[in-house]
């Protein structure tokens, strides 16, 4: 009877259901947190770049982008003018100026005369100088060096100071990379390379894909196999022979080298063809057989069926491929370097960014803004046409 008592005294559902509920909640919360952490890891690097590209370049160099909203503090040094800069006023000799030159958004909190004591005196205060007289520095950076006797120093003494840079967001970095660093030119070059290289292969691939999907002829299986094989052939295999070929053609035509836009358009067209044919063929082959057959019975030729029915129906696959090709050509570095060269006026954005990494490797205001200019176009394409992109990705791999 004891067991029966226990069974009635402690009804199982009551004891176990809250336990179960809390376990489910814990699992749910864990899922949320785990995914959140992963998403943060995946987005933070890009966010850091974007935020940094919008910051004041002096701040960017001295503080992390996660402190972008706080005032950053830096130690600077400035050399005062020599005695030639003095003026005589009311029997006293004065040297005036501003420690910042012309920058206006910074403020000084303290200054000093040696590197070890950059904050010896708060702003507004005065300090005696080794070359005679006393110096007074204001928070705006204005200083006044006053002496009863005439200045005779030939080498300006140094003033150390602590500058506060208030948080500041600006498009200056973008203006600078686009105007002064040739990034705008590269932007145009990237478009020059990408648009024709995206459009030209489409029609070519569509006709070939239709033939491979719906026509019967010898070696069809072999051609399909070759296309599938070419999908993964490393581009490295093509570079040397094609470069030699281009150079030979240029030589025959009397041009100085084979690095032309025409050359790179044709190369990208060819390199995009295997994927284009593969994607389009898979898509076309999946179109309902009955439509084709009834059209054939009605006397339509393959050409009419293709241009009138299959091509319009294949729009989603054409869109998928175009996005792939656009992103791939825009983001390509290797083909552009080989077939267009490293000449400044022909650099595409990826090449330009690599060259900036080499020459301006520590100028993060240039690099962050330059990088963002490089990635903004593919990001727009990607986010606005993500659906087609994903569809193409799925058609290309899961088969």
């Amino acid at each position, binding site marked *: 009877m004891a067991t029966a008592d226990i069974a009635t005294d402690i009804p199982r559902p009551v004891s176990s259901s809250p336990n179960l509920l809390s376990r489910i909640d814990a699992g749910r919360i864990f899922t949320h947190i785990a995914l959140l952490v992963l998403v943060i890891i995946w987005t933070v690097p890009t966010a850091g770049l974007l935020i940094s590209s919008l910051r004041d370049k002096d701040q960017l160099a001295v503080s992390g982008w996660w402190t972008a909203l706080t005032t950053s503090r830096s130690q600077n040094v400035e050399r005062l003018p020599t005695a030639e800069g003095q003026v005589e006023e009311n029997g006293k000799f004065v040297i005036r100026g501003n420690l910042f030159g012309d920058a206006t958004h910074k403020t000084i909190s303290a200054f000093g005369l040696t590197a070890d004591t950059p904050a010896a005196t708060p702003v507004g205060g005065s300090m005696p100088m080794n070359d005679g007289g006393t110096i007074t520095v204001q928070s705006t950076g204005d200083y006044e060096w006053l002496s009863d006797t005439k200045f005779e120093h030939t080498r300006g003494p140094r003033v150390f100071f602590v500058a506060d840079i208030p948080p500041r967001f600006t498009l200056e970095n973008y203006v600078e990379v686009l105007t002064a660093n040739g990034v705008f030119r590269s932007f145009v070059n990237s478009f020059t390379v990408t648009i024709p290289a995206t459009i030209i292969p489409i029609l070519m691939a569509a006709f070939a894909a239709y033939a491979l999907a719906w026509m019967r002829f010898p070696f069809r299986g072999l051609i399909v196999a070759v296309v599938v094989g070419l999908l993964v052939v490393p581009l490295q295999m093509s570079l040397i022979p094609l470069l030699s070929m281009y150079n030979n053609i240029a030589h025959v035509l009397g041009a100085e080298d084979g690095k032309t836009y025409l050359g790179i358009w044709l190369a990208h067209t060819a390199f995009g063809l295997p994927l284009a044919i593969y994607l389009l063929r898979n898509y076309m082959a999946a179109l309902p057989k009955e439509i084709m057959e009834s059209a054939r019975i009605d006397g339509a030729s393959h050409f009419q069926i293709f241009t009138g029915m299959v091509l319009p129906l294949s729009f989603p696959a054409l869109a998928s491929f175009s996005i792939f090709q656009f992103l791939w050509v825009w983001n390509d570095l290797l083909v552009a370097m080989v077939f267009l060269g490293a000449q400044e006026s022909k650099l595409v954005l990826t090449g330009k960014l690599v060259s900036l990494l080499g020459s301006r490797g520590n100028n993060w205001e240039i690099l962050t803004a330059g990088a963002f200019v490089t*990635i903004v176009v593919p990001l727009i394409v990607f986010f606005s046409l993500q659906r087609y992109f994903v569809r193409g990705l799925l058609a290309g791999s899961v088969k």
Partner: protein
Amino acid sequence: MGDIFQQITGAVIAIILALAGLVIYFWGTNWLLDRLLSSGSSSGNEITRRDNIRSQIRPWLFLFPALLFLTVYLVYPVVETFRLSFFDKNGVFIGFGNYVWAFGDSGFRQSIFNNILWLLIVPFFATAFGLVIAVLADRLWWGTIAKSLVFMPMAISFVGASVIWRFVYDYRAAGENQIGLLNAIVTGFGLPPQAWITLPLWNSVFLMVILIWIQTGFAMVILSAALRGVPEETLEAARIDGANGFRIFFDIMIPQIWGTIVVVWTTITIVVLKVFDIIFAMTNGQWDTEVLANLMFKWMFVNFDYGRGSTIAVIIMLSVLPIMVWNIRRANAEEGTR
């Protein structure tokens, strides 16, 4: 500025000419074929014969431009590169001389070692993260947004990604304000900052992180679609049997989508074998980070030795070959079921 204008005009004209050329070719040849071999005014036998000939020729007219491009730009160069790999810098035939050189060369061995390291690490982590994110995201209301954000690096060029991560890895001497995120975290824990890119062996790992970061989105999208194909009843049955989340994941989901995991893995493997931009932009092979594709580029454009460059390309090709053969067999098998 006039220069730029000319360039844009050139591109527009090229598009128009190319499209017009293709349209004229396809329409023209089709018209010609119908015209020359028209079946009008002939006997029944003749009509069948002509129809036959036309249907023999037409596929090749459709295929011709694409096949021409594939042959000139891919098939011929592959053969030619194989041939060139047996010649030295001056075009003298040296048999397997370049291959012998390669396996004795320390730079080449370093590259092979690093490529193997990349092959072991990148496909595994990209696939694993992709799978985990796909599983997590499919269960949450904000999963679509999460997936979109993880997928985003797929749109970013390898060079752009390199700059993004170089900023994360940025190094300032100890005591200075770290502006690189990684060193800020490290110094936040009271540890000394590191110049990550020059740290032997680990620097390769930091470069791999960039590719994993990019490829995870790819793996996630493909695996997420495959997971949706796992029958809900199977999962439900497992839940009723009392299997917990981990058991369901490892014992049911993974076996069900194993085929897709292999496809994702091999696709990323091919990307890894060809990886060039990241090393070129980040280190250019310095500090023992060299890989085959970058080494090939150096032999091609720094030393102008096309023989050795070709040899390295052939070795990349040979390492891709097993996957290529497997892909072709898979495609053929599917052709049979169609």
